[in-house]
């Protein structure tokens, strides 16, 4: 008897012929069926996460050789960018129109005049980069995304190599990569 079909069943490795064989054996052979159920029960234990919390990992993804210099150059710009983005936010960020119940539009804006590419990555994009578009020659970049109400984490990716939190959002947290994510709560527009 091909006992190992049970493990192949547990691990989703059966092809169609083997599935037929497996089902017929389960049907005809009680010990085989019992063994399958016992091993499935054991598998529930085996596959549980088992831990109270995942360990923290610091992976130096965003640290490059140039980081120190970049940071130095970047600091005054960041301050300026923050101020400008706040001004921009005042003018540009109007309450987003409601699309359908539960679904909202959120406009992300950042001032970044001297870069050639700005993207946003967040849990709402499953951490895939989504490009922002230039707003004329103003130095602003923006994108409007449809989001459901809820809490989101994101950051901006500049020229493929620099990750920054949103300077207009005060709440942020350290991610596992030595970078920072902004945290926003999107709620129904008033």
């Amino acid at each position, binding site marked *: 008897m091909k006992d190992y079909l049970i493990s*192949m069943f547990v*691990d989703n490795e059966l092809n169609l012929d083997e599935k037929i064989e497996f089902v017929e054996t389960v049907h005809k052979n009680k010990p085989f069926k019992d063994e399958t159920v016992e091993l499935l029960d054991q598998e529930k234990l085996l596959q549980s996460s*088992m831990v109270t919390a995942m360990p923290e990992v*610091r992976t130096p993804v965003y640290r490059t050789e140039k980081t120190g210099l970049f940071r130095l150059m970047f600091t005054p710009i960041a301050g300026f960018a923050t101020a400008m983005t706040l001004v921009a936010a005042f003018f540009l960020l109007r309450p987003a129109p409601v699309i359908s119940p539960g679904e909202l539009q959120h406009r992300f804006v950042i001032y970044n005049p001297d870069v050639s590419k700005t993207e946003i990555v967040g849990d709402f994009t499953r951490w895939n980069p989504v490009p922002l578009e230039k707003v004329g020659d103003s130095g602003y970049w923006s994108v409007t995304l449809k989001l459901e109400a809820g809490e989101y984490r994101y950051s901006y990716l500049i020229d493929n190599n620099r990750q920054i939190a949103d300077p207009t959002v005060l709440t942020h947290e350290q991610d596992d990569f030595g970078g920072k994510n902004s945290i926003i709560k999107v709620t129904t527009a008033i």
Partner: protein
Amino acid sequence: MNTFRKFYTENKERLFGYLLRKTGNYHLAADIMQESFTRYLERYKDRDQSPALLFTISRNLLYDHARKNRYDASYEEEQHGSELDQENAYSIKEEYKRVLRAIQQLDDEAQDILALAVSSGLSYREIADMTGNSEANIKVKIHRSRVKLKKILQQDQL
């Protein structure tokens, strides 16, 4: 870079799951996970992302660790016996300690193969390649490991 981030997010829990089952030790698993991602990133970040490669790096790090500590077995035993057990006590849920202990009683190969089958999300084909088995062989070995574990768990309850 962000593709790496996605790769990391998708594989972090799997890799940790594998290492925890293989070692039974929360902190050792965490250290080796950290080192595995760091090495992967340093050496292979420009290649197509491959979970199999990540797991291979981890397995090699585990073997290095085991080899280094073989010379110092008494020290290791002491560590396992006292401090690490205490640290594990906080990090591993009570109902699973029995399962982790049972896995540690399997022989090395069975432990490794079972931990890969249960946690890695890799296919039998990939596990066979990684462990130097044929695909026909790995089916049987994975199943035998599960059955052995079942026996250990049953004896444990008697």
